[in-house]
């Protein structure tokens, strides 16, 4: 198990170093990146099987006691999310290789190694068992995301990058203050010890810490009042970068909230969080309706969908948390695929603007299908994964009698369908406007891009195919999170 965890965390870092060393040799560079990301993804799948069979594994790095050292905890929750995340990054990298030599491609000399660093940060964030290492993992993710977002250095990227960087720097500073508060109150940053000590604190201090970290993680996750940086910055990056960001970054914030607020017993914050969830869903989707560019529409949907996961968490029940976990598993691949299809649209139509494209369904029926499946899934139409995930979250909310938020969820679902139909009408049907267009990717690259997207679509279908098993696993993970005793016992036998 130690080996698997090291492959997932250290492997990508080694790959990043190798590919940087080989920056002038394209083949060696690509092999290093693909090998690093691929082995990490493979290790995470084996880890899921091992954890589902034998239960939680812990690794005390350097053999230190939990009070002093870093503990890595592979519990079922982490093991469920990690393979989804790492597989997405791997598929996106394949897509990026196909997208080379077009005007929309990221600079491969930088994007490959940075994607590896980001992967390492994602693995660390999911597996870490203490709050400060979580901060370091966030920084690892953010630092690589800052550079990925701005590495081409054009005007719009720098402009959007500034907002993104400053917003996230502020959130990181608040995170560090939060660590200081928690350490003052409890004398530890280890999550298992915190799960024992925080519930014993005075109500005011306890809820203060809970609310503080709600703001910290909420900024990363882009929930209602704290989302403004997201739709501004995401669309300016190259599509492959945006696909990774939209699929993973905000989800790391939600993941941390699900873990932290459940383990620390912050149930009292539930009602306020439900309200925030309802506002996030509705305002996000309304923002999407106002946009006229595929990438910007999809960016607003990231926010709206975060609301559903947040809603599952805010119920603070096993069913709600299980729904949120299942939603995470469904949402990460679906969102990444939609952005990849956005990249395909850009490639075929010369732009991702709705006004400039049209009639793509006739020319590229495969692209139309690859858009329709995740789009319907995002809206929650029955045979697809989105339906199962939404059903899980909404029925958990109905059990708790949270009518307002259920109505908000249903309204947001309808509006999501409307805005997906808007993309479909303008891009896939109708006529396309005349005008000069940048040249599309060469044939071989186009084939790689289509294959990577098709693979990802197949991944989302797999989620809906195994939805029953995944819901069972999610429920099991949620039970562990709701009763911290098992987590505490795993870390401190």
């Amino acid at each position, binding site marked *: 198990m130690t080996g698997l965890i090291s492959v997932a965390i250290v492997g990508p870092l080694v790959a990043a170093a190798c590919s940087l060393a080989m920056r002038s040799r394209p083949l060696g560079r690509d092999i290093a990146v693909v090998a690093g990301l691929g082995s990490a993804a493979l290790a995470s799948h084996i880890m899921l099987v091992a954890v589902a069979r034998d239960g939680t594994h812990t690794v005390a790095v350097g053999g230190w006691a939990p009070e002093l050292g870093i503990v890595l905890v592979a519990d079922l929750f982490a093991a469920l999310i990690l393979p989804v995340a790492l597989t997405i990054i791997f598929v996106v990298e394949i897509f990026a290789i196909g997208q080379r030599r077009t005007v929309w491609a990221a600079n491969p000399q930088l994007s490959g190694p940075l994607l590896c660093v980001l992967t390492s940060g994602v693995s660390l964030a999911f597996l870490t068992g203490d709050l400060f290492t979580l901060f370091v993992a966030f920084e690892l993710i953010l630092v690589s995301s800052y550079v990925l977002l701005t590495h081409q250095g054009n*005007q719009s990227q*720098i402009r959007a990058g500034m907002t993104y960087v400053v917003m996230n720097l502020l959130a990181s500073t608040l995170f560090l203050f939060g660590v200081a508060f928690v*350490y*003052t109150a409890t004398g530890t940053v280890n999550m298992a010890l915190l799960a024992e000590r925080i519930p014993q604190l005075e109500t005011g201090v306890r809820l203060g810490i809970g609310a503080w970290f709600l703001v910290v993680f909420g900024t990363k996750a882009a929930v209602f009042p704290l989302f403004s940086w997201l739709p501004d910055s995401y669309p300016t990056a190259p599509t492959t970068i945006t696909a990774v960001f939209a699929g993973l970054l905000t989800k790391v914030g939600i993941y941390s909230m699900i873990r932290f607020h459940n383990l620390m017993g912050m149930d009292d914050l539930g009602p306020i969080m439900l309200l925030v969830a309802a506002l996030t869903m509705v305002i996000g989707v309304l923002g999407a309706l106002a946009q006229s560019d595929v990438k910007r529409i999809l960016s607003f949907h990231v926010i709206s969908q975060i609301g559903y996961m947040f809603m599952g968490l805010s119920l603070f029940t096993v069913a709600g948390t299980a729904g949120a976990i299942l939603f995470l598993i469904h949402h990460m691949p679906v969102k990444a695929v939609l952005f990849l299809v956005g990249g395909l649209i850009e490639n075929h139509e010369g732009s991702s603007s709705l006004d400039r494209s049209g009639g793509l369904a006739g020319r590229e029926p495969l692209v139309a299908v690859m858009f329709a499946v995740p789009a319907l899934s995002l809206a929650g139409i029955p045979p697809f994964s989105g339906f199962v995930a939404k059903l899980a979250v909404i029925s958990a909310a109905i059990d708790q009698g949270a009518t307002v938020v259920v109505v908000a969820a249903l309204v947001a679902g309808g509006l999501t369908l409307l805005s997906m139909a808007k993309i479909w009408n303008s891009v896939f049907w109708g006529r396309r406007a005349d005008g000069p267009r940048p040249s599309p990717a060469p044939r071989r690259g186009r084939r790689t891009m289509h294959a990577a997207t098709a693979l990802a679509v197949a991944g989302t279908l797999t989620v809906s195919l195994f939805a029953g098993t995944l819901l069972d696993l999610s429920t099991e993970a949620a039970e562990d999170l709701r009763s911290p005793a098992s987590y505490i016992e795993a870390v401190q036998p």
Partner: protein
Amino acid sequence: MSAALLLAVGGLTAVGLYLLTGRSLSRIVLGYSLLGHATVVALITAGGPAGWPPIAGRTAPEDMSNPLPQALTLTAIVISFGLTLFLLALARRQRSLSGDDLVEDDLEDRRIAAVQSAPTEPDDSGAT
């Protein structure tokens, strides 16, 4: 816990946040540095009363100051140092693109706002 240190944290945070709300990126860099210092002092304060250097064999364990927050602080300092450099690089790039280092408006947002307020007028954004 020393009141002076707490006041220092409060003062640094206040000045840092004020600078962070500015439009000029060089102010933001300064504000971020001050906020970084504030978190460092806060983490050190969280470690309890000051003692002798925590070096095994030289100081008796009961006289040592708490080494854990110091380790956390070192990590935080390194991270904030790297990010300050990145912010400076961003400011320099912005200056070479537009001649100043101000954070600009989102044109797409302005365009949509203009459509909302004046639906009949043709859209002529890009003035900012």
